């Protein structure tokens, strides 16, 4: 929660930048939900939004994205690559089949340490 700041804006507006807080997140989530479920008619599993650090994100990635995979130590062999991936914010996708730049969607994990879990 240290990352949370109070000037993230009211829950009825999203601005640029990395500032956020839980109320603002919830507000954005609700707005997205109205569009995704109401207009696009998506059908989803319940979401659980959690705060995690970039180290935890690293562990999650190195255990194929599952937050509860067995102890991170076991993934030692793939950690350096993952670490580079996350630290550099990055140009390579971790998937071997595609070294296409960027998933900026991934880079955002680092800057804003939280994660969605279904």
């Amino acid at each position, binding site marked *: 929660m240290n990352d949370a700041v109070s000037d993230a804006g009211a829950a009825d507006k999203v601005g*640029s*930048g*990395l500032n956020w807080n839980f109320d603002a997140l919830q507000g954005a989530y609700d707005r997205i939900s109205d*569009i*995704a479920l109401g207009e696009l008619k998506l059908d989803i599993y319940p*979401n659980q939004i959690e705060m995690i650090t970039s180290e935890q994100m690293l562990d999650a990635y190195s255990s194929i994205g599952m937050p509860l995979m067995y102890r991170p130590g*076991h993934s030692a062999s793939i950690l350096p690559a993952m670490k580079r991936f996350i630290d550099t914010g990055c140009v390579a996708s971790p998937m071997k089949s595609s070294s296409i730049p960027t998933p900026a969607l991934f880079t955002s994990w680092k800057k804003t340490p939280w994660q969605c879990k279904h």
Partner: protein
Amino acid sequence: MAMQTLVMAHAAFGHNHFFKNNSLFRQWTDAGGILDYMEFAKTYIARCEEKYGEAEVERVLDSAHALMAQGVSRYPRKRPLDLQSEAKRQAERRDEAERTFNDLWRTLPSRDVSTKRASDITERRQRLGLPEENILYFLEKNAPLLKTWQREILRIVRLVSQYFYPQKQTRMMNEGCATFVHYQVMNRLHEQGFLDDGAMLEFLHSHTSVVFQPEFDDPRFSGLNPYAVGFAMMQDIARICDTPTAEDRTWFPDIAGKGDAMGTLRDAWVGYRDESFIRQFLSPNLIRKLKLFSVFDDGNSDLLVNHIHDERGYRSVRAALANQFDVIQHEPEIEIVDVDLDGDRRLVLQHKVHNGVMLDAAEARNVLSHIAALWGYEVRLVEVGTTSDAVLKTFDAAPPTK
């Protein structure tokens, strides 16, 4: 907070919808049980480490991980994996496995080398369920020297591998779906005034780099970006539904001009995987837009550009791209074919070589030594052609000496 909003739209809604609805996921994965199962796996492995030492556990896990891609049964099962009861019934199942395992070895015909007739070999293969493509499964059930906890670890790695198998086959669609959804959502939020212009620009910058596709002669090119292809195809399908050209009407009479873009996309997200999605929906319009062409390589002469984005090329380009996204066509076809139970218990694997593509020798030796470590006896891998049974190459590995 544009990025957080983007990621929520992308993952919590886009991916989430795809996971919940795509038929491959429905068939193969048990989302309700996965977190509990992971918790069980984590605890189980931690307990093994306390009991048998980290090094021992690490060794088994390393070998199992090396075989992860060979821990998948590729053909549809009758009912989805039930991970919840999987965790609950672990002890019960272990006893059963033990019993089956012992029976298997006890009921083998008595050792008589002289009567090694074809019918015996057939019977033995039947008894062992050979040929078997799922190497982890075979080792879990049949490796003679493994302890119960080691079998359980193989099982855990195998189930995890199976759980993730649909992802490999639907990566482009899954990313396309998530990207399409976030794009729709972010634009609507901007329209509604909820995202200010700065946030929208920040989002667009990120979105553009996610769907960036370098040209084939760009130094950054390393193949097709699944985000780019998936997003472009889904945008294109929406266009065909809403504002079709005459060409679209000829190619896609079922959806062109029908106007129900979201409904069409939702149906596609349910019913297809990358390969079949391309085969069904890649349009001439998009082939032109992406400037797709196909290159023929017979391994000997010069490369030949045999199809381009023109009237004669559309179908061939589409078929070639669909094949390229077909996971099954790109994984080596390796099966366990025999065990020499009468002699030295050597395990025999066969790789059927398609289009002359052999295994990387160093990789094959590495993986084979992991199989030998788990099997406990020698292992042989034979590469054979698909048309004749002529042996192209043979690898041997022995278990590490203790």
